[in-house]
């Protein structure tokens, strides 16, 4: 048979082949996904139910403050951290860094067991061998005289410092150094001398006027969570709220929250404070600070009239101690002590921090070869000491160096042995919260890696091995030792563990006297150069946690990068645009980073944030440890991101023994290169859109109370009770009434026996309270399994640009809730201190009349009868029409399948995926995602009340962002039930909806910010 004889089409045989293939495909599809195994417990643990969370009270160890936390665990794994409402510091709130402790716990680059460096290579070793080697070294050192030995510990309060000193003493070694690079030594010294405590509680709510002299107390300066809580309470007073004045060359987050900015030249703050205290001449102060005399005189008059007022000082210049003392003296004379400065509930965690000068002295001894053995725990000196200090060379002269670090940081790479510590969420401990309250730390789960050990237990094991010390350590566990410190023993400790706190105090170690200020700051260059600890990465500790890398800097909105802040005037003078690479050069060194024009900095000043620029310190080989590659340079998320400004910082200390980070001089040059700007910011201006609205103090009461939603007033916040059809939402049909019964209202029948239409989930966000700190953003990532997308390898496979933050520069970030920051006033080229910043948390508004819903061709987004705008991932086919339709731009597309394990863009490498919330779907590629109003928490609450056969109580639960918020700006609840707080707040006189004119009937109600202009300065309401 020839082809010609066949009339048409496919031969019968071909047809059968094709049909067969088709059938095979269908059959293959019919085999459902593999179901896997069901692995039961060997013995059921008490007090846990599989699938139901268990909560542990503990203490956060991410900064020195030591807030109380509640750790949610599910089936033996910690999955979420929130603040402990009973704790005197955190009072239920928690910052972004505290929440990110989980990513330290589950960090894929954690050491999985002890290692030793042999012949220039790292090799695993057993604990028995490791301990005998250390024990033998300790014996040798003691025989030769161990007095020169150094133990450097990341500062922590509680019982451990004394325990450690006792252990060191047993081996003839000197007490350890308790180092904290972020701690403001000058402020601590000034507080101690003036108030008697290292860090008092600043009760902002009691003040009539708040003046901050360079202190970023909302973000990183001191205990930011309690400070934010108190500050927000002050601002929530609305009309009566204290005015806030910020003095400093760069507007930090606190500066942006201030009503007035006084841009003083770095180093001139002392003259201003002296003038305010009546000790100086206004002319001299004005001349030194570059601020007009009128502004300073007006501030002085205001301060003299305000009783009580509060002055906080946190400069990092060479004269920082003098500024701190002068400000404290001013507080004393203003009568602030006892009213706005409270010592009874001081932050006890800041007691006992070693001076930086002590550390420098230890480094000097290392360099001279008189340190026989060194231990480092939690501190990354090779990164945080200025490069000019040549730490690596000094450290190399120590014959035996042991690190207790969990992470492959720069310092550990230089050590000879690593004995990986447990994470604070896996180990026992305690902390001093206030002078009269101590906070306990307990393991919330078994160690992630079985071959890691608590340093305290390692020290006990070493003590037990040593004949001279064995008698002092009868128990093998630090926990037993800790129980001994409770007056009531085991039962007292159990009581304390339930609440996370206990009455009592822990004496802090004495701090050495002040040494001499050392060296001089760089004077080379035309610009004042400021470095400051990153609000999210701190002194670099946070850089290995992708949530923190992904969290945009609250001020500049840049993530996964380093940048140089300069005023647009400076940039214009230099001929650089946003993203052009500039070089900052001091007498100590030079760094290159992208230029970011920023309105809130003096034209003669440039600034850089610390925290980035981790790199392998010794170029050691990437070490294969079991299944994981150990990435030297602080792990895969930190390595090679940005630059380290410490490379250009001179090693100078102030009179309190702290490092000087301000008032250096540097030169600034254009390089001609350009790089991406990984920013989440679109425009910094509102362009008349009225997104972030404000009202001038004094006008609030005068405002006519407008209806928030056009149309039917009585249902202003209940549009979810009506259908999502536009005509209906606009009131044509109105809310279903009794006469509608019997009609087919489907899901929207309020009389439906399923009770579905009873609720309208809604949210209020008080912009007077919101400080823009962005803790809500990280809380959302943690709760909702949101992938981070900024790592260098997470871009597309084809046409890949392997740069950290590239996806963010293309607008692919997945922050379901984001913090928008807008400027009001000034213009974008000329310098003026008179501009205002407004922060707006922006998330899905759960519109009653949502533009995204009618455009979806597959009904993947719809309106639930309880008011939620729902995204159904398994229906979504990724057309992205909804994102185009959304006026708020709060829908995010999963471009590369960040939740799929077999992709290189996978955002949750083992064991990071242990943190995933089992109640939330992990989204795959090609799916639109957005805020769900934490629907899983709503369902959980509904399940609970159904199980307990009761009605839901008002404010019974809340969503993740509201729970974290350290300024208590976000309130969530049922607006249809007047007993819920949200229903009352939604009726506030300041309430408004963003883009109300679009008739979207949003469920998110914003309360206008209240601004307090100085009599002299113009307002931008």
């Amino acid at each position: 048979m020839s082809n010609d004889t066949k009339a048409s089409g496919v031969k019968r045989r071909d047809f059968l082949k094709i049909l067969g293939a088709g059938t095979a495909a269908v059959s293959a599809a019919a085999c459902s996904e593999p179901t896997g195994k069901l692995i039961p417990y060997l013995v059921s643990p008490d007090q846990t139910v599989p699938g139901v969370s268990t909560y542990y009270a503990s203490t956060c160890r991410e900064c020195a403050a030591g807030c109380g936390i509640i750790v949610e665990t599910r089936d033996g794994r910690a999955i979420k951290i929130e603040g402990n409402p009973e704790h005197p510091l955190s009072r239920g709130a928690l910052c972004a860094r505290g929440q990110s402790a989980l990513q330290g716990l589950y960090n894929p680059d954690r050491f999985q067991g002890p290692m030793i460096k042999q012949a220039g290579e790292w090799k695993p070793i057993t604990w028995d061998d490791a301990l005998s080697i250390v024990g033998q070294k300790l014996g040798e050192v003691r025989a030769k005289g161990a007095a020169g030995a150094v133990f450097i510990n990341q500062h922590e309060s509680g019982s451990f410092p004394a325990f450690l000193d006792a252990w060191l003493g047993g081996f003839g070694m000197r007490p350890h150094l308790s180092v904290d690079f972020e701690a403001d030594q000058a402020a601590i010294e000034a507080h101690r001398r003036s108030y008697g405590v290292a860090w008092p509680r600043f009760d902002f709510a009691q003040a009539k006027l708040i003046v901050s002299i360079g202190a970023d107390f909302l973000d990183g300066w001191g205990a930011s969570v309690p400070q934010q809580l108190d500050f927000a309470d002050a601002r929530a007073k609305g009309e009566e709220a204290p005015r806030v004045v910020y003095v400093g060359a760069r507007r930090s987050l606190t500066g942006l929250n201030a009503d007035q900015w006084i841009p003083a030249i770095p180093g001139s703050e002392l003259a201003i404070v002296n003038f305010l205290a009546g000790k100086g001449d206004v002319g001299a102060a004005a001349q030194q600070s570059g601020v007009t005399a009128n502004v300073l005189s007006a501030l002085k008059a205001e301060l003299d009239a305000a009783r009580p007022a509060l002055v906080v000082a946190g400069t990092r210049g060479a004269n920082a101690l003098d500024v701190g003392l002068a400000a404290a003296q001013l507080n004393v004379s203003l009568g602030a002590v006892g009213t706005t400065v409270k010592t009874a509930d001081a932050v006890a965690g800041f007691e006992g921090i070693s001076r930086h000068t002590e550390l420098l002295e230890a480094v000097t001894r290392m360099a001279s070869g008189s340190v026989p053995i060194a231990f480092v725990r939690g501190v990354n000196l090779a990164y945080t000491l200025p490069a000019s200090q040549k730490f690596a060379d000094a450290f190399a002269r120590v014959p035996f160096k042991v690190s207790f670090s969990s992470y492959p940081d720069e310092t550990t790479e230089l050590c000879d042995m690593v004995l990986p510590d447990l994470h604070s969420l896996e180990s026992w401990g305690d902390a001093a919260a206030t002078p009269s309250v101590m906070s306990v730390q307990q393991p919330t789960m078994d160690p992630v890696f079985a071959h890691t050990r608590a340093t305290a237990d390692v020290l006990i094991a070493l003590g037990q091995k040593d004949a001279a010390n064995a008698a002092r350590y009868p128990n093998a566990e630090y926990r037993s030792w800790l129980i001994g410190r409770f007056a009531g023993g085991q039962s007292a400790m159990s009581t304390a563990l339930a609440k996370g706190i206990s009455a009592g105090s822990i004496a802090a170690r004495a701090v050495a006297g002040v040494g001499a200020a050392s060296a001089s700051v760089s004077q080379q260059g035309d610009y004042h150069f400021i470095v400051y600890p990153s609000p999210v990465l701190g002194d670099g500790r946070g850089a290995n946690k992708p949530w923190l890398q992904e969290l945009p800097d609250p001020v500049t909105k840049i993530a996964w990068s380093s940048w140089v802040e300069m005023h647009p005037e400076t940039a214009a003078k230099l001929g650089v645009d946003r993203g052009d690479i500039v070089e900052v050069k001091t007498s100590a060194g030079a760094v290159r980073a992208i230029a970011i024009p920023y309105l809130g900095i003096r034209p003669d000043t440039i600034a850089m944030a610390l925290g980035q620029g981790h790199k392998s310190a010794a170029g050691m080989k990437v070490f294969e440890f079991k299944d994981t590659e150990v990435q030297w340079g602080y792990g895969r998320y930190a390595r090679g991101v940005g630059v380290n400004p410490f490379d250009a910082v001179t090693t100078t200390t102030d009179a309190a023994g702290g490092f000087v980070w301000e008032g250096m001089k540097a030169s600034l040059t254009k390089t001609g290169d350009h790089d991406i700007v990984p920013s989440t910011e679109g425009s910094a201006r509102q362009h008349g859109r009225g997104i972030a609205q404000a009202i001038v103090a004094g006008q609030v009461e005068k405002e006519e109370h407008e209806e928030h939603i056009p149309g039917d007033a009585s249902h202003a916040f209940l549009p979810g009770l009506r259908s999502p059809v536009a005509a209906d939402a606009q009131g044509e049909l109105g809310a279903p009434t009794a006469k509608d019964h019997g009609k087919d209202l489907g899901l929207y029948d309020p009389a439906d026996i399923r009770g579905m239409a009873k609720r309208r989930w809604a949210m209020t966000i008080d912009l007077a309270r919101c400080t823009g700190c962005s803790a809500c953003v990280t809380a959302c990532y943690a709760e909702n399994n949101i992938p981070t997308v900024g790592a260098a390898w997470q871009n597309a496979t084809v046409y890949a640009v392997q740069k950290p933050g590239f996806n963010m520069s293309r607008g692919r970030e997945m922050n379901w809730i984001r913090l928008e920051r807008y400027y009001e006033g000034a213009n974008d080229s000329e310098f003026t201190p008179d501009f205002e910043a407004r922060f707006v948390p922006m998330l899905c508004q759960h519109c009653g009349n949502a533009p995204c819903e009618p455009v979806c061709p597959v009904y993947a987004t719809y309106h639930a009868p309880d008011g939620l705008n729902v995204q159904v991932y398994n229906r979504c086919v990724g057309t992205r029409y909804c994102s185009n339709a959304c006026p708020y731009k709060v829908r995010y597309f999963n471009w590369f399948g960040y939740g799929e394990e077999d992709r290189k863009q996978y955002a949750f490498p083992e064991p990071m995926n242990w943190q995933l919330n089992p109640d939330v779907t992990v989204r795959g590629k090609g799916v639109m995602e957005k805020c769900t109003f934490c629907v899983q928490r709503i369902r959980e609450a509904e399940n609970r009340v159904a199980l307990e056969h009761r009605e839901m109580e008002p404010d019974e639960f809340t969503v993740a962002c509201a729970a974290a918020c350290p300024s208590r700006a976000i309130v969530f609840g049922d607006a249809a039930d007047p007993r819920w707080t949200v229903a009352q707040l939604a009726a506030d006189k300041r309430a408004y909806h963003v883009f109300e004119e679009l008739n979207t009937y949003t469920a998110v109600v914003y309360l206008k910010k209240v601004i307090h202009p100085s009599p002299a300065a113009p307002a931008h309401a």
Partner: protein
Amino acid sequence: MTKRRKWTAIPGLLALAALAVMLSAYSGASSSQGHGPAQPIAFPHPKHAGAVADGGLGLNCVYCHYAANKSPDPGMPAVGTCIGCHALGAVAGTTPGGQAEIKKLQAFAASNKPVPWERIHKVPEYVHFPHVRHVNAGVTCQTCHGQVQKMDRVYQYASLNMGWCVQCHVNGYDPQEGLKAAGYAPATSPATPGTTSANTTPTPSAEKKKARYDCANCHY
């Protein structure tokens, strides 16, 4: 005829195949209904959960699946729970086959290894099925799982497809039907007070327990 024309029917056939796939999905054929793999230990549900009259012990399902009434997860019995009765020297089985299986269990316990049961019922990851709501609403286990107390080897009784879920959420769950499904005659059941006659027709739909059926009830 040219070779080219020979292949013109391919698109049509592909469309046919696609249609077949869609029909198959719609019909529920893509479910693993009926799937009943061999287990590492041939656990006899009839012996444990079967009615006493049938020679079983009459154990309540939640004796072993202890979280079904208080958690989204039903809970699998810990090896310790099994060993509570089947420790060495205790209940050792009556038949040689049973004795062999119990020995396997004891071996798992002795080596501190959990039993790697083959999972049978699994809804996709984007579905949230809280057992607690269903059990506390009075839905009998057998309504969805079939009469496990009579299954020598447990298999997937229901399709677990969305249509199967939704028909109950929309039309409502009839407690009488649930009891029938569980293998009880409604008249003899103590759980249905008010029922006087075994011949009563099923209760009218007004008394059926309905539930939300919009997507976000389960998909989030």
